[in-house]
Structure formats: C-alpha cells, structure tokens
C-alpha cells in the first residue's frame, strides 16, 4: 500500500484508507482511482500527485 501527495496542497491519498466519503473503498490502489478524480482540498488533478517515498 502506497501514499500519494498532492503537489499543490499536500493532501495525502492513502491507498490503505481510500476515501470512503467519495466512494473510494479502503485498499483501492492509486491506479484504480478514477482518472477524473481530483484533490478534495484544492482541485488538483490526479496526474499532479506524487508518490510518497516508501
């Protein structure tokens, strides 16, 4: 399980936790997050997230 960070605001998408409030179940891999999903804090698109170092 990895974490992905929004470049613009630092929001973290944690694969282990998912985002149940947005219908993304815990354990959802980053690759399976919909391509049109965007950062819930600042609107940045998925392509502008960076993987956190392990």
């Amino acid at each position, binding site marked *: 399980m990895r974490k992905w960070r929004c*470049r*613009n605001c*630092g929001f973290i998408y944690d694969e282990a936790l998912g985002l149940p409030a947005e219908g993304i179940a815990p354990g959802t891999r980053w690759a399976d997050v919909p391509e049109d999903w965007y950062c819930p*804090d*600042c609107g940045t698109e998925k392509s502008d997230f960076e993987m956190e170092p392990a």
Partner: protein
Amino acid sequence: MMLPTQLANTIADPRAYADGEAIHAAFRTVRQTAPLAQAQPDGYDPFWVVSRHADVMTIERQNDIFHNGDRSTFLSPKEGETMVRNLVGEPNLIRSLVSVDGQEHRDLRGIVFPHVTPKAIRAWEDSIRVIAREFVDVMLKTNGKCDFAKDVALLYPLRVIMTVLGVPPEDEPFMLRLTQELFSNADPELNRLGKGIGEASAEDGLKALMQVAQDLEAYFSEVTKKYRANPTSHVNSLIANAKINGEYLNYRQMMGYYIIAATAGHDTTSNTTSAAMWALAERPDMFAQIKKDPALINAFVEESIRWAVPVKHFMRTATQDTEVAGQKIKKDDWLMLAYQSATRDEAVFDQPFEFRLDRAGAQQIAFGYGAHVCLGQHLARMEMRILWEELLPKLKSVELAGKPENTISNFVCGPKRVPITFTLN
C-alpha cells in the same frame, strides 16, 4: 531566540518589500541565522518568523493546530488589532475565507470550490482567451512603448475575474480602486488617505480602511439582491444564494466572500503578471527560449509565481502547545508564514534568486499550502498561460524602458510600474 529589533523592523516594513533587495537580505539573514525565531518589531506583539519552505508547509498542513482567524490574519500593529476588535468584535475587519477555520472554512470554501477546479474552469478558457486578445491588442496599439503594469497586467486579470464573478465592465474601475485602497494602505499613491507611512495616525488609517470595506459592502448588498432575484452561474450568484444548514450566509460571511473574490482574485495575478514581464524584459535569452518553445510557458508561469510571490505572508495562531522544527510553540503564539522567504529558501531551490524555467522537484508555495491553499490558483495559472500564449508570438523583442517600481506594502503587492519598449514580429 528573539531576532534583533532592526531585522524584525525590516521584516514588517512595507518599504523593504518595495525595495526588494532589503527584504531579500533580511530574510536571507533569518534563514542563515535563526530560521524559526521570534521577532518583535516596534509597535507589534511578538511573533514567530517561519522562514523555511519546509516549516511553512508543516504548519499549513496542520490547520487544526494553527488557526487563521484567532488573531489578525495579516501582520497588524498592536494598536490596529485592538481597534479592529473594538469595532467589529473580531480580530479581522473582513471575515473572509482566509480568516475562518474548521467547519466554517470547509462550508464556505465548498460553495465555490467545485466551480474553480481545473476541469470546471476549462469552460472559461475560450472566453478568457477573447479577453486576453483584447488586452494584447491594446498593448500592440501603444506604438511599442507602454507601462505593462498599468496598461495590461492590472486590467486583464481584473476583467477575467469580474467576468467570472458577474460584475459588469463599467464597475471595474471602482473594483480596481477599492482593491488598491484595501491592499496598498501603506502606499500614498494608492491608499485612500494619500498619505505615506507615519503621515497619518493608526486610527485614521483604520477609519480609511473601514470606509473602503463599507463602500464594498454597499456595492455587494445590491449584488445580493440582484442575484437572489435572478440567479445565474456566476460566482457572485453562488455566494448570494448559498446556504449552509439551510440558512443563507450571514452578513459578514457573505460580504467577506464577495470582497476576497473581487480583490484577491485579480490583484495577486496582476502582480505576478507584471513581475513576469519585468523578468522577461531583463532576460532576452529567456524571451527567445520561450518564443522558440512555447511549451515552456507553463514553466514560465509557475516560476513567475514563485518569483513574484504576490502574497508576502499570512499569520497563524497556535491553538495548543506544540513543536515545529525543534522549537516549542506555545498556545496563542502568533506566527508569520513568510512566503517571501520560503520561496527563496536555498535548502529547497537551487539558485533561488535566479529566474529559471528548468526547476523540478520542490513545489513553489506562493499560493499557500494545505486546506487554505488559494481557491483560485488554477484559474490564475490558466489566465496567465493564456495571456502569454497570445502575447509572446506577436513580440519580437521587449526591454525595460525605465526603472520598474513596486507598491509599498508588506502584504499583497507587486510591481505598480513596469515601463517597457517592444518590437513586433
């Protein structure tokens, strides 16, 4: 550790920001000697100066521990903050997105947020391009010589944001003047009193700001009536008709929302656009490089935001005892997030005082970071990109035709004059 008073005074001095070199030198010293230390300029309560990129990000991500609205959100002298509290019962004259926290902030931000995501603003791209072409045409008709700040950079972002808000063009001069009076209250050329630092009492200065806020509120009260009667998709209509828990926004929330959208929504972009042209006019090699490869425009815009850093700081207040970078921060301590410094942090940016198109890695944080990151950041980037896409192909050369001049302010500011000469293809 407390910074020397002279250094603290410089960090608070609007004239140091107008000078440019003076404020850069001060923050360079802070980063080298005491990157997270307290300061107490004459007339101010003590505050922490957060000078490093990493520490600014750490604090901004902890928005439950570091509040925006418990004290003044911008650096305010003791006397000024006391007077504001006596007048409005809160530490900030205007209750806007940048001066609220927690659920109130989430609720208010959520009203406009879905309409300013990268995906949502694509719907505006064509209209904004039309506006950009209008202002490029204005510039091209000046016979090769203009004040880029006054003729283009001040007016183009103003037209863009007013279009998005739903403010008619005939009201733009009013909005521009009041924005300048609100943000440039230390600059005698732009403030309402026409007086410089030390020439008016703090009370008179605050009264003038109150009048500016009241003029804006009078205008926006009519806007509320208009958009409640006939709702549209404009941002002002969203604000007028928004409800939280079934209730319209209260008066201060609503006025604060209109005011920040109508002022911060263009002044920051104007400052960045002016600073970008200033940088371009001094760097013919970079100008040629971008003309040759227009794909570099995105990098140029991003670097110009870091370079201009149009918001010099915001203040935060600790809600509990905590620790940042080994320093003990106590509950109620006041902290300055010094974007002016963080965007020049040598630990993060290679050659931070060079304007470079090849920066990779560290994110510039001039839009802030965390939950309070600039709501309009994507719109700002898009409108600047479009302007350069329209303007640069038409220019053959550009150079300074005199000394540019910065606004005298320690808060939201940038170049107020950028005289240039240019030739066309």
